[in-house]
């Protein structure tokens, strides 16, 4: 109906709007706090958003296929407990780390079993595994904490290369890998195809179940990475680590333009979404806004973001 150039320009405008929001945020927050607009603060902020960002990469792909994973926060807690408490029980830390990664992969695979084999909606499945993983973490740790890690473990979450935090480098590498995967490979096209019309994708020969399994397992891997970085950053393994992470992650992905109905979304958008949310959180903290208000603001932000998204989509059509 409309020439191809018009949607392209409008699509650009969505990311421009995001950038404009980010700029406005930065200006507003730097007025509220003098230390906000400094390079050291930005680098410092990045230490906190990498965990959200890593998981958001996997979540973007899942949301593009029309799925969702609510269990990521609980999964982070379970991985943290798994590595911390096996270490406390006498397992050498490198092995405990591998075990943690294994738990993350297994958690993702367990989610995918219900979703692909039983054809259940990811929402209910991951709502169930959210309770299960958090409960396992609580039960196994008996609501206790482990914190006497050896010094080298701090590298994962507290290492600096010059002024650049180590996890920022991990994040940039992960972004590059997932971006290539989504935008430049056949696998990435499969992800969009499933999100646009799962049945049509199936009949066109897309291995739907295998792609979905890979997505949830891959997200499990990212959750495990985030858990290791988080546990190292706070030097503590606790069952309640990552509580509410799913809200931050889903907000970032949706803010970045991925449709919750599936079929659209980009890594660039998600990264912008992650940075906006991290900026907001960091800025609000620096401006001494209580965390209670931050919860309220984040919840409202999620709803507004989805609303704007669907509004943009309608203009595009």
């Amino acid at each position, binding site marked *: 109906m409309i020439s191809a150039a018009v949607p392209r320009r409008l699509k650009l405008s969505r990311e421009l709007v995001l950038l404009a929001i980010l700029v406005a945020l930065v200006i507003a927050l730097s007025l509220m706090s003098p230390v906000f607009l400094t390079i050291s603060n930005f680098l410092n902020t990045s230490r906190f958003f990498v965990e959200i960002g890593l998981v958001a990469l996997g979540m973007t792909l899942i949301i593009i296929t029309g799925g969702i994973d609510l269990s990521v926060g609980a999964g982070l807690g379970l991985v943290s407990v798994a590595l911390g408490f096996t270490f406390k029980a006498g397992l050498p830390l490198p092995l405990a780390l591998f075990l943690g990664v294994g738990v993350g992969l297994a958690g993702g695979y367990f989610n995918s079993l219900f979703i692909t084999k039983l054809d*259940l909606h990811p929402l209910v499945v991951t709502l169930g595994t959210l309770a299960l993983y958090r*409960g396992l973490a609580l*039960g196994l740790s008996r609501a206790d904490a482990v914190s006497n890690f050896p010094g080298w473990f701090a590298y994962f979450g507290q290492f600096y290369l010059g002024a650049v935090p180590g996890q920022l480098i991990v994040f940039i590498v992960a972004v590059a890998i997932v971006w290539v995967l989504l935008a430049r490979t056949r696998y990435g096209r499969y992800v969009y195809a499933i999100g646009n019309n799962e049945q049509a994708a199936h009949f066109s020969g897309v291995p739907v179940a295998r792609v979905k399994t890979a997505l949830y397992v891959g997200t499990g891997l990212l959750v495990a990475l985030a858990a290791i970085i988080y546990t190292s950053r706070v030097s503590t393994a606790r069952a309640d680590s990552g509580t509410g992470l799913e809200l931050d992650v889903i907000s970032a992905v949706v803010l970045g333009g991925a449709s919750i109905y599936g079929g659209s979304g980009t890594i660039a958008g998600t990264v912008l979404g992650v940075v906006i949310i991290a900026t907001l959180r960091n800025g609000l903290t620096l401006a001494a806004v209580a965390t209670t208000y931050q919860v309220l603001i984040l919840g*409202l932000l999620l709803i507004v973001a989805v609303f704007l998204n669907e509004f943009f989509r309608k203009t595009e059509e």
Partner: protein
Amino acid sequence: MSKAAAMPRSETGRMPAGVRTLLLRPEAPALIFLVLLAIVLAFSAEGFLDPANLEDNIARVVVLGVIALGVNQVVLSGEIDISVGSMLGLCAFAVGAVGESQGGLILPLLAGIGTGVVAGSVNGALVTLGRIPSIIVTLGMLYALRGMILVITGGRWITNIPSDTRALGLQSVAGVSVPVIILVVLLVVVELISRNSTWGRNVFAVGGNRRAARFAGLSAGRTRFLAFVLVGVLTGIAAAIYVGRAGGVQTNAGQGLELQVVAAVVVGGTSISGGRGSSVAAITGAVLIGVILNGLVLLDVPAEWQSAMLGALILLAISTDALRRRLLREQPS
């Protein structure tokens, strides 16, 4: 339902028609499981059969059950509401604050219901008018409402609530506690509305096949909107019971309740994909959760394992539902 009736003809052909109809009710598997579990607990857990313990099993799930009645209608209509944990907290604060300053029972109760209706209407409007998926709306509201509690109260707890405000949680009539009576009355009322009113039938139609319902001239938007409002009304009533039983309100009141409510609804036998289920199913699920939690305590299982049990139970219930649907599909009609 016609599909369901055709299913087990081969195995149950010799059964009396009444028994077969009963076995095909959505809540039948959960009820059978509940009876079996009660028998097992009666033998293994000391004190399970005490009348006081049996009533406590139900009394402890009244808040859960009342809210589950509402969420059950939302799920039947093909949507979901996971904001109820925070909604209960906010309603409980409304009840507590009005009770603290005004006393009495009616005003605090109305304040609770009013708060619930407003929150439920926001959910419903965003889902139906804003066309945002209910999971996102209610996930956002779960956090926004909890944030609102903290902002409004500034972290303050309400502790000195007069006893007449607490009447719904404290009193008992003829040896049966008021919360249990309220639960039974609401179950009957909601089930009657669900079976006999136009709206109640529309909920099944919209949840079963929204496009078909729309082509048949039903207002899918209004039907779902009212389901969300019903959740608000029932959460307001539940809040008055909660305040009555607890005697105070903390800022984390109702935290995590949304998981138990969804668990109650799907474990009881209401299909998460909408269109199939009943109010009896929601209450069966709630009582089942109460009995399981009670059993864990009686069997000395540490409280930390409760969440894991709840999660396993949800997964078991939805898997059973999925297998049932698969069997129905494979059965030649």
